[in-house]
């Protein structure tokens, strides 16, 4: 957390993939907004290699849906929240984006907190792959390519309890029961990630406070 100097908030998330996210805002919009009562969220995803493709647009769309439920946009009407996600290491084959999606969501959450953007709460995400009818949390590159289906699940976490499902992006073939199992396991895993995140945030805030005190 807080690794970049020129933006309001930034965070890096490494888990199989490596993703760095920056948040600037609220700032003045350059374009006219469609919604006069809400803040505008500009989200840019830059892939490690090449130009942004439909794959990035898909990730972007999913992240938007999560942000719509968590960022308190009505506090800053007609303002702009600029979020840039830079993927540094793909970590999975070109046909997949589970790991990326989960890492992006976690990085965005941390960066938003770092930038002190008002949110309704914490959200976390995990990647799950099903290999030979077995659920694998945080799969490796090889496991992703061997899997029959992949799932990226994001939960809203309150008081260290996963309370609401924000997003579930599945790809491949799977049964209804498998999906329920995935959601169940993902909820527990999201809680673990949230605990880990809290620790980091605590550390970040403490370091931040120390720097502020030093300047005074």
């Amino acid at each position, binding site marked *: 957390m807080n690794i*970049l*100097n*020129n*933006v309001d908030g*930034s965070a890096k998330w490494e888990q199989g993939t490596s993703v*760095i996210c*920056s948040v*600037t805002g609220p*700032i003045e919009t*350059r374009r006219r907004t469609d919604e006069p009562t809400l803040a505008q969220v*500009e989200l*840019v995803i*830059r892939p*490690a*290699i*090449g*130009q942004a493709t439909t794959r990035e647009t898909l990730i972007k769309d999913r992240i938007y849906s999560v942000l719509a439920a968590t960022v308190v946009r009505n506090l800053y009407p007609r303002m702009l929240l*600029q979020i*840039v996600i*830079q993927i*540094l*290491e793909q970590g999975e084959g070109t046909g997949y984006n589970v790991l990326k999606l989960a890492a992006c969501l976690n990085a965005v959450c941390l960066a938003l907190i770092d930038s002190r953007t008002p949110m309704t709460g914490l959200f976390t995400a995990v990647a799950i792959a099903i290999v030979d009818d077995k659920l694998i949390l945080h799969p490796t590159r090889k496991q992703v390519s061997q899997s029959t289906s992949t799932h990226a699940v994001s939960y809203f976490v309150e008081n260290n309890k996963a309370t609401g499902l924000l997003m579930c992006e599945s790809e491949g073939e799977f049964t209804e029961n498998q999906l329920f199992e995935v959601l169940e396991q993902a909820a527990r895993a999201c809680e673990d990630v949230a605990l880990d995140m809290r620790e980091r945030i605590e550390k970040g805030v403490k370091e931040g406070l120390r720097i502020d005190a030093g300047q005074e």
Partner: protein
Amino acid sequence: MISINDRKFLTEALKVSKRLDGRSMEEQRPMEVTFGSQFGHVELTMGKTKVVVRISAEITKPNERRPFEGIFVVHTDIGSMASPIFENNHQSEQEIMISQVVEKAVRRSGALDLESLCIVAGKKCWEIRADVHYLDFDGGLVDATCAAVMAGLYHFKKPDVDVDGGAVTVCDMEERHPVALSVLHLPVSVTYGLFELKNDETNEVEKVECVLDCTAIERQVQNAEITITINKNRDICQISKPSGVSIEGYRIVELCEKAFQEALKVTEMIDKALKEDEEMRNKGNWKALLSAENDRYEK
């Protein structure tokens, strides 16, 4: 943007040869290069400036006018992650300037041997692509980009190919040892900011100060900038000074000499980082085991 007070403070300090961060006039911020797990993944930091370069290779059809050459492209796109002054998906004048200077320094200086990228003349060749990602901006983008791309080119290895008649097979990285690119020389860009120092009373220009490696704040005050690209063989690849305050010819020659000294330092730094990375990858000395080279001895 910078306030009038800040601007004045900075120029007054320069008059007595002082800089905001305590460096001397001709002191470059130290560069630090780290390599990722994959070939051609370079992270370079220079003060607060942070650049990530990814080199990638893919097989395409060569340019019809140059059937014997491969293709090398550098993509520099500065987003608002580096600094909110840059707009996403929109190139400002400053950005275009930076990408042109980088293009000249790295691509047109012939650093990469394009003919070695040819696989089947007129049909297939390698396209080497350098994606530059700017994470943090504090001046010196051209210098940082140039060094990072060159380090990346040295570090990158492309998979080996087999040519059988017209059929080309790409060998797996694990099956056959990947091959390094043939890089001919290492151009280093050195950027000086030129500051017009005026006399307080007469408001006449007393002298033009050349300051090496300006930070983002200094860049806003500078009256012009000059980028010299030079390699350790003393070949000047480019001198770029777009508009701004004028400078005498002999001082440019002087600057070139100083730039050469800086280029030596940067070259040494990149060489050292490459060597360390090579040693780390070569743990267990598998390279010697794989080598088919015979011992050479003198008669």
